[in-house]
């Protein structure tokens, strides 16, 4: 959970800087200094959210008490106007210029709140099953601080790990004994914080009174079983309890802790992840909390991919809850993108991270210029990052406003604007110029041309820059991919002989390991002649 906003404005309707970019927790959790003087101090965060709801929804309390017909004409007007603010601002309700001027004049005069809070915000539950809404504001603040402290420690912990790794490869400074001492203390603090926040299991289950009623189901393998693993005792114990609670279909806070325990020992255990998701949906636990927890697991298990399916399940589950709240969705998309960026900094071509990113774009409609920009950053970092190129292709050519649904990746899509095709051709060409033997932008260029239904000949001049004096003594080729594309250009132009020459030179000199393929391509030219 992000830290609380510390606004200090006492104005009746503080206009937030980014009204559409707030996390639900933030919306319901503005600083206490904004509490109207007449309200009593709320006992719990739920009550506080409720107070704020009524404060930003004038006449709502009255309407609930006496009904719409019971309101005075002035109250009715205020009530209606309040409800019209967003639709009018978003032009869902068209007003004449004059009416709109009148409307805003009234809103300003009455000081109606521009931003209205949703009712009945659900805080979710914490690790012991307690509804976070029943926290006192102080308790919530403590919890938030612990989250922040843990995150900070985890960053330092990761720095320590990478320093040690570099030192081991003799690429960085030695790890000093002070560093190690600090890390030891840090780990103790982190363990304590995790126990506090998540109630992590640390000892054996058999001695834990909480698990007294469960009869574990041990593995019981036949003698001579194949690829039998000598599991460590704590793992064998944990999974035997896991089998027992799964067999009983128990979904409880202690089971959630058990899944975390098993995941910490073996994150590749797909069953425990599926079970964990089931528990979360049955207990209706807080999804933002789960995502925070998941981030740490993901960072310490970079290659694991169960994490990404779990995350996708969480999003599928959470999305309908927040579907109506554009602001919440945007904030979520932003925090997810930020996390993805962190993961890609560790491994810029991680297939599972990119797959999840592609899913997220579709799910939360992240067809935005900032998504394109952040993908572009990865291409700028390493122009050979083909995963980033692939994501760009998806972003540009699957955006529902500018493409035909279901159009295949090599099909001409007339709905894609010409300006987009031009822009993408230019982008690919710029990147080819940096390193002409890099195949990623060449493949991209061909893909763009196909989407735009453009002839290959439209790039002939560009491609010919990389090939000169073909078949002659002074022959110079700075990109075998250019020669490959040139063969296709000539074929399209009907110049089979020249196309064959390109393929022959590829086979003889410029890409001979693919000789068999280039020869087959030459037979495709024959076919083209016969069918022509």
């Amino acid at each position: 959970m992000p830290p609380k906003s510390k606004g200090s404005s006492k104005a009746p309707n503080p206009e937030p800087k980014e009204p559409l970019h707030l996390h639900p927790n933030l919306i319901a959790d503005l600083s206490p200094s904004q509490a109207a003087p007449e309200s009593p101090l709320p006992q719990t965060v739920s009550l506080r959210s409720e107070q704020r709801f009524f404060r930003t929804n004038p006449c709502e309390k009255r309407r609930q008490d006496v009904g719409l017909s019971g309101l005075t004409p002035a109250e009715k007007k205020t009530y209606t106007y309040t409800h019209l603010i967003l639709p009018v601002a978003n032009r869902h309700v068209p007003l004449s210029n004059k009416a709109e001027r009148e409307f805003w004049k009234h809103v300003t005069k009455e000081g109606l709140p521009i931003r209205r809070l949703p009712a009945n915000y659900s805080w979710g539950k914490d690790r012991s099953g307690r509804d976070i809404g029943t926290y006192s504001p102080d308790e919530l603040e403590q919890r938030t601080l612990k989250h922040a402290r843990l995150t900070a420690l985890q960053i330092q912990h990761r720095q320590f790990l990478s320093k040690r790794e570099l030192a081991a490869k003799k690429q960085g400074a030695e790890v000093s004994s002070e560093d190690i001492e600090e890390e030891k203390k840090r780990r103790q603090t982190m363990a304590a914080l995790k126990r506090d926040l998540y109630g992590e299991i640390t000892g054996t289950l058999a001695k834990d009174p909480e698990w007294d009623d469960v009869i574990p189901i041990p593995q019981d393998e036949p003698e001579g079983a194949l690829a039998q693993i000598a599991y460590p005792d704590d793992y064998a114990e944990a999974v035997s309890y896991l089998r027992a609670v799964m067999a009983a279909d128990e979904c409880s806070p202690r089971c959630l802790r058990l899944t975390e325990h098993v995941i910490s020992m073996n994150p590749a255990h797909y069953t425990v992840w599926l079970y964990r998701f089931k528990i979360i949906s049955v207990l209706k636990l807080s999804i933002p909390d789960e995502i925070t927890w998941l981030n740490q697991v993901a960072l310490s298990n970079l290659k694991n991919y169960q994490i990404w399916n779990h995350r996708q399940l969480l999003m599928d589950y959470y999305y309908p809850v927040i579907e109506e709240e554009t602001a919440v969705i945007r904030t979520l998309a932003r925090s997810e993108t930020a996390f993805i960026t962190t993961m890609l900094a560790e491994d810029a071509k991680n297939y599972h991270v990119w797959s999840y990113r592609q899913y997220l774009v579709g799910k939360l409609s992240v067809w935005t210029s900032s998504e394109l920009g952040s993908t572009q950053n990865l291409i700028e970092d390493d122009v050979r990052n083909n995963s980033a190129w692939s994501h760009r292709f998806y972003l540009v050519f699957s955006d529902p406003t500018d493409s035909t649904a279901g159009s295949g990746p090599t099909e001409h899509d007339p709905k894609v604007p010409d300006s987009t095709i031009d822009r993408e051709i230019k982008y690919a060409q710029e990147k080819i110029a940096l390193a002409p033997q890099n195949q990623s932008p060449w493949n991209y260029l061909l893909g763009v041309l196909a989407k735009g239904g453009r002839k290959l000949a439209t790039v002939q001049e560009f491609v010919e820059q990389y090939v000169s004096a073909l078949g002659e003594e002074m022959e110079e080729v700075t990109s075998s991919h250019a020669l490959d594309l040139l063969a296709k250009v000539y074929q399209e132009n009907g110049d089979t002989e020249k196309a064959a020459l390109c393929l022959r030179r590829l086979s003889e000199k410029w890409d001979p390991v693919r000789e068999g393929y280039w020869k087959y391509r030459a037979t495709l030219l024959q076919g083209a002649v016969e069918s022509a």
Partner: protein
Amino acid sequence: MAAATAQTWSDSPSQVGSDAPEYSIPSLFTSDPPIRDTLETGSSRVQDATLDECLPFLTGYQHSECNAHGLPHLDRGRHINFLHKQLGKLPGAFTSADPSRPWFFYWCLAGLSLLGEDVAPYRERLIETVRPMQNALGGFAGGFGQTSHLATTYATVLALALVGGDEAYDVVDRRAMWRWLCSLKQPDGGFQMALGGEEDVRGAYCASVIISLLNLPLDLSPDSPACSAGHTGLFTGLAEYVRRCQTYEGGVSAKPGVEAHGAYAFCALGCLSIIDSPHRAIPRYLDVPLLISWLSSRQYAPEGGFSGRTNKLVDGCYSHWVGGCWPLIEAALNGPRGAAANPGDHPLPRAMESLSSRDGLIRYILSCCQDQSRRGGMRDKPSKYSDAYHTCYVLSGLSAAQHKWDLVTPRAHESIVAGDVWTVSPYMEGEQIFDEEDRVCTVHPVYVIPQHKVEEIQSYFATKSGF
């Protein structure tokens, strides 16, 4: 490799000077590629490091004994030993493999079969090991008490087929398996890997392998989630799902809209070759010229091996994932051998020669992928440790490079999911660079277990229509 032979260092092996023996290795596989960009990025740095890592092995310097072509022998005995050991007791460090033990059964038994070992003696032990992993609601899990998963079910069914015998086949609860597969079938035509698990092309391939080996009914049970989209069978909409996974690069991605990846290309071709004979199904659902272009781009020189994606490094396991695509592609282009050509069947020209460099791949496998220590086993590249996964798929890729597969007779009708007849023979074109003792056995191009094991399990279940 006619063009490459012209650049051979020397035609016959001879000891020149005292530094190193001179072998007959085409310079293509011993020198930098003809074009290299000057711009350095993260990708080019690791690529350069990989070349530095592989070249001493490719030139023969790192091997104590090579044949005239500069290739070390296949260290058969050590690899066999390694695979037997991986089937035995494993230390606690293997705990992360707890949910994927059936894969070990398949990788090791398939690897041993490729090395010519009889794996039938494992029958009893395998049966007793997998029995508790089967769930009453269908399918096999990674272990006892876990959830059924398509990957582990695929691996278990293949392992049972490998050891063979009625008792092994009868372990499978076919009715429950069918119900479970129906529950995994999705409205978009594909398959989830587990209930609530991810959906990708692996699911499409694993499910079609299971269905066609066990001769399961193709009807969809009415409670399948796929029924809502009007699907009536386990295979309806599946080929269309696979089609949507082909990308603008020509390769195949895990799911529609992501990056093309070698492992998924094999899954896509395998799945289509089960749905119908490859010369009909593959051109019908995929842009074959674009796919071939992408597959061919996976092979690098001087390494000789395949990479899994554009601008990624060579890795021994793609010898199978990419290398195993070629027999299916060739069948798609060439159609049934000798059969009266139906022009609609293969609109593309036949492939008269190999589309990839078999020699390049064989060089990479024998010189870079064999663990040099007593441990044995095959690996991704020289800097990595060997493991059962790479041993299985490197050997399978070696087999595909050493042999030629032909589709002789296609199945009688496209609605049947089995019956294609394939033949295999040693690949005879050009000079053979490996010694005959280094030839491995063959595995079926779709099922990746020996051909007769496929026929045996299919004929056993052919008698059981329904349950």
